[in-house]
C-alpha cells in the first residue's frame, strides 16, 4: 500500500456512525460560525476546543476503534480520552457563547429559546450538575462498564458498545462542565473553588482502587479479548496490567490537573482586577 492509502486507511472509521459524524460536524460548524473578534484569549481557547473535539472524533471514528475493541489497554486509553481528557479540554475552552452565537438566529429563537424555558429540562440539568451527583456518576460509570460480565457483553454487542462510548463522552462533558463552568449564584469563592477541588481530590481514590485492582489482579478479568482475538499477540496479563495502570494513574492525575486549573482561577479572582482585564473574566 502507498503511504497515502495507509493514512486514509487509518483515518477511515472502522465502524461508520452517522451520529458521530453529524454531532461533531455540527459542533465544528457552530464553532467556526460563532467566531467573534479574535483576541488572544479566544485563540488559546479555540486550540483547546479543537484539540478536544478532534480527540473525541479520532477515538470513535478512525481505525483506532478497531484496536480499542481488541486490546484491553487501548480500550482503557480510549475511555481515558473520551471521559477524562477530551471533555476536560472542551469544558476548559468554555465554548458555550461561541457555539450559541454560531446557531442561525432562526434556530436560536424557535428552538433554543423555547427549550430553555422548559422548567423540567432546567431542573434535570441542575440536578445532574450538583457536584456530588456529577461525581458519583463520573466514577459510577467507570465501575459499571468494568464489571466483567457487563464488559463481556458490551464488547460483543454493537448498540451496547456505542452506548458505552457515547455515555463516557457525554458524562465526561457533564462532569468537567460542572467543574469548570457551573457556578451557583451567591456562593463564596471558598465554597465554589474549594468544594470542587475537594471533590476532585476525593474522586481520585475510587479510581485508584479500581485501577490497582485490575493492574494487580492475577486473574484474567476480561477474557472477551482472548475469546475474540487481540489486535496483535500480547499476553493477557501484560494487557491487563497496562490497562489497569491507565485506569489508575493518568485518570487520577486528571483530578490534579483540574485542581490546578481551579486553584489558578481562584487565585486570579482574589487579586484586584485591573479594568482592562475585568471584561475578559467569565467565571
Amino acid at each position: 500500500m502507498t503511504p497515502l492509502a495507509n493514512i486514509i486507511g487509518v483515518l477511515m472509521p472502522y465502524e461508520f456512525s452517522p451520529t458521530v459524524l453529524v454531532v461533531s460536524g455540527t459542533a465544528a460548524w457552530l464553532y467556526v460560525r460563532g467566531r467573534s473578534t479574535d483576541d488572544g484569549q479566544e485563540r488559546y481557547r479555540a486550540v483547546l476546543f479543537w484539540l478536544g473535539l478532534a480527540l473525541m472524533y479520532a477515538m470513535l471514528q478512525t481505525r483506532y476503534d478497531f484496536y480499542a475493541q481488541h486490546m484491553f489497554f487501548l480500550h482503557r486509553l480510549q475511555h481515558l480520552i473520551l471521559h477524562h481528557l477530551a471533555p476536560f479540554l472542551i469544558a476548559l475552552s468554555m465554548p458555550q457563547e461561541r457555539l450559541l452565537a454560531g446557531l442561525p438566529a432562526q434556530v436560536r429563537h424557535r428552538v433554543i429559546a423555547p427549550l430553555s424555558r422548559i422548567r423540567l429540562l432546567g431542573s434535570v440539568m441542575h440536578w445532574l450538575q450538583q457536584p456530588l451527583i456529577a461525581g458519583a456518576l463520573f466514577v459510577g460509570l467507570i465501575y459499571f462498564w468494568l464489571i466483567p460480565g457487563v464488559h463481556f457483553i458490551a464488547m460483543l454487542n454493537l448498540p451496547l458498545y456505542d452506548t458505552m462510548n457515547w455515555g463516557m463522552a457525554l458524562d465526561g462533558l457533564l462532569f468537567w462542565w460542572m467543574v469548570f463552568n457551573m457556578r451557583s449564584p451567591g456562593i463564596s469563592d471558598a465554597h465554589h473553588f474549594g468544594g470542587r477541588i475537594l471533590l476532585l481530590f476525593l474522586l481520585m481514590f475510587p479510581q485508584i482502587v479500581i485501577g490497582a485492582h485490575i493492574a494487580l489482579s492475577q486473574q484474567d478479568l476480561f477474557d472477551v479479548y482472548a475469546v475474540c482475538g487481540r489486535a496483535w499477540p500480547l499476553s493477557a496479563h501484560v494487557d491487563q496490567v497496562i490497562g489497569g495502570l491507565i485506569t489508575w494513574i493518568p485518570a487520577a492525575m486528571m483530578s490534579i490537573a483540574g485542581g490546578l486549573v481551579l486553584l489558578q482561577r481562584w487565585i486570579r479572582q482574589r487579586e484586584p482586577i485591573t479594568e482592562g482585564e475585568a471584561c475578559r473574566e467569565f467565571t
Partner: protein
Amino acid sequence: MPRVHLMALLLTLLLVGCDRQSAVWHGHDLTGVMPDLAFSLVDDNGHAVTASDYAGKTVLLYFGFTHCEDVCPTTLATLSRAVNALGADSRRVRILFVSVDPHRDTPAILQRYAEHFSPQVVALTGTRSQLDHLTRRYRVAYSYGNADARGDYEVYHSSAIFVFDARGKVRLLLQEQLGAAAITEDLQRLLSDSERSYHHATK
C-alpha cells in the same frame, strides 16, 4: 442525602442483575447480542456461498487457518467429536471453519484439511474484504505475524465458536476448553428447542 443512597442501591441491584452467568448453558448465551448469520465467502470447491446455503442447519462458526499447528486442529477435533456424539442429529449441524489466511489456504488445501475431521466440517475462505466484513460483524480480530526465511508466518485469530440456530439467529458462544461432552449437551438443547419451535410453527 437519601436520594444518593437510593441511587447507589438501584445501581448495585442493576449491577448484580447483569453480572449473573446463565446457569442453563455451558457456553455463553448470546441470544439477541449479535446480528443474524450472514456472509458471502468461497467454499472448498471454489464456489461462492452465502449464509442461505446453510439455512435450516445449526451452524458453528469458527475462524482459523490450516497451517495452525495446535489450536485449530484441537478445536475442530473437539467440535467434530461433540457433533458426532449427536448421532443422527449431527446431519442438522454444520461446522463452518473460516480460514482467515486466503493467501495460503486454497480451496483444494481447505478440502483436504476438512476431510481430516467430521463430515459436518465445511472449510470456507474469501477475499480479504469478505473476511474483514465477516470478522467486523462478529467483532473478532485476526492478524498476521512476520514471515520467516521460508515464507511461513503465524496467523493470530479469535478462539470464539459462535453458534447459530436453524433460523440463523445467534445463540451461543462456545470455547474449546468446555470439552466435547458439554458442547454436545448445549447442541442437543439447541436442536430440541428449534424442533419444538418448528413444530409450533407448522401447527
